[in-house]
């Protein structure tokens, strides 16, 4: 029998991880919802954020500088990806598939350039704080708690941006009907580029924050990306709210499953769940909630 402490511990661990996963997944679902791009380089961008954050912290020991640099560079990567990689493909008959292939290429390019530059060696990074709270045998890692809070704060900002600004209105309109939106005078290429930048900047932020937890190496983004991918498929592609709910739920399910099974076993369970959702309701839980 599993002790209650272990169960509660794993639920808390899962919830914290879910917040970070949501940060990665929300950007991924946003860019699909608005521009119909399944960005397979999202894990690679996460990895870039982790490296930039690690170097900034080693150089300055200041988290604000690390977050600022990490987000700026990954924002620029997003802009560049949209302008030079995705825009030329637009208008092709099978645009969604061409975009998948192009971003897969970008993922490989990012990962292996970092391997070429900095080898495969794992770098450890100092966390924001090493403090630990113990409440009735339950360990709360304060660094992870802070990372969770920052993630939720960033996602909240994104919600407000989409809901209350003029840019957010353009984004929602473009997701609904791009041609009409363009006729209404919205600069579509610019909207796509900025949305792409915001999406990758969120991945970059996740990378900076998770560097100390995962340590930093060229393929550090692969597993978080696959998890974010599952989350987005289950939460409903393009549904930011469904993604947030799915991220928290799935991370808790995964953490609890890890009591009994290995990381690969948990992946099988999650991917099987994802396949079932895709077969039964391709719009995911988000689509099901809204219908």
């Amino acid at each position, binding site marked *: 029998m599993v002790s209650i402490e272990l169960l509660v511990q794993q639920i808390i661990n899962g919830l914290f991880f879910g917040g970070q996963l949501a940060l990665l997944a929300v950007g991924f679902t946003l860019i699909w919802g608005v521009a119909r791009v399944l960005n397979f380089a999202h894990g690679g961008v996460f990895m870039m954020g982790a490296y930039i954050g690690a170097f900034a912290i080693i150089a300055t020991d200041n988290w604000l500088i690390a977050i600022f640099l990490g987000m700026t560079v990954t924002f620029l990567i997003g802009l560049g990806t949209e302008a030079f990689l995705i825009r030329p493909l637009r208008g092709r008959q*099978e645009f969604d*598939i061409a975009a998948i292939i192009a971003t*897969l*290429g970008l993922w490989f390019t990012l990962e*292996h350039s970092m391997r070429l530059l900095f080898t495969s060696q794992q770098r450890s990074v100092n966390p924001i704080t090493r403090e630990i709270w113990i409440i009735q045998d339950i360990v709360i890692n304060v660094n992870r708690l802070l990372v969770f809070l920052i993630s939720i704060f960033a996602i909240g900002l994104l919600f407000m941006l989409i809901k209350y600004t003029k840019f957010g209105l353009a984004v929602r309109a473009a997701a609904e009907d791009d041609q009409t939106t363009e006729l209404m005078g919205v600069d579509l290429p610019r909207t796509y580029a900025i949305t792409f930048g915001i999406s990758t900047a969120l991945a970059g932020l996740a990378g900076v924050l998770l560097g100390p937890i995962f340590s930093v190496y060229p393929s550090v983004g692969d597993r978080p990306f696959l998890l974010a*991918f599952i989350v987005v498929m289950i939460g409903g592609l393009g549904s930011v709210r469904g993604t947030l709910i799915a991220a928290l739920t799935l991370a808790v399910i995964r953490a609890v499953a890890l009591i009994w099974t290995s990381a*690969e076993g948990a992946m*099988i369970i999650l*991917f099987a769940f994802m396949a079932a959702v895709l077969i039964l309701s*391709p719009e995911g839980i988000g689509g099901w909630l809204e219908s």
Partner: protein
Amino acid sequence: MNVDTLSILFNRVWDDVKVKLRTTTGKAITVGFLLAFVVPLIAGGYQLNVATQALIFILVVTSWNFIAGNFGILTFAHAALFGVGGYSAAILAAEFGIPVVVSVFLAGLVTAAFSLPMAVSLLHLRGAYVAMLTIAYAEIIFSASVILRDITGGPTGYSGFPVPFGGDRVLLYYFVLIVVAVLVALQYLVSINRFGLVARAIRESEEAAQMLGNNTRRYKLAGFVFGSTVAGIAGGLQAYNIRIISPPVLGLERMIEFMAMGIVGGIRSLSGGILGTLVVYGLMEVLRPIGASRLLVWGIVLIVAILYFPNGLIVSKKQLGSVRNRAVEWIWDLF
């Protein structure tokens, strides 16, 4: 089917082959096939292993092209099914004492059995959704190959299964060459006949193909299972070629390598798959001295291919011209 339809079929194929043999591609494939027979006379040791590997890749890439190019079903499960074939052949030979040559084809049947439920669940999905669902299947098979230690040997892989032809690499090469040639030819025959026509009609517009009275679901099902079976046989050959089969063989990275080869050559034709495999795999072997960072080239190759040669090198004479013109213009603009 009676003798008449068979003779019509035969004549149609024969006419097509006569025309195709006169094209550059046809001549190149004929010459390449004849050259492949003399490879063991001039190449030995490591070079022969590279040649055997190239043949196996040709088989798996053409079978991916068969599904993705003809039907427009962008499957990511192909490397996983290739791995299923590899594990099946090795396990059948080691645990059940089935002869090596037979085990390769039985591995194809096992792979077909794996691919059938996948195909059924893919029928109602399109475009990017097919990619998503097949990634889920591929990752389930990958994770299963890691944790099912009793069956697959876990992360270190499965080895110590019987060696084919008493370890004679030359005989293995010829065996691989024959199997690959026959299966590529078979895929070609299927592609140029009614089946291939309907498949391409489905790619362009499934509704229109349905309207013309075709049971498109049955065609998609048969096409996916057939291509996967070929991938399984290729996986069986791969197991005997490298004599160990481990989880990385069926990982997502391997899938991307197959896709890079198929896309560079041209996803829409089998000859594109052959050309792409030779170009990309050849490039990788040439770059072997620079070590692991040559994997960077896979990424760059994919990006350049999708941006500038979306239909592959096989049909890109005109496009090459336009790239050259653009480069010339760009250089002129500098002055």
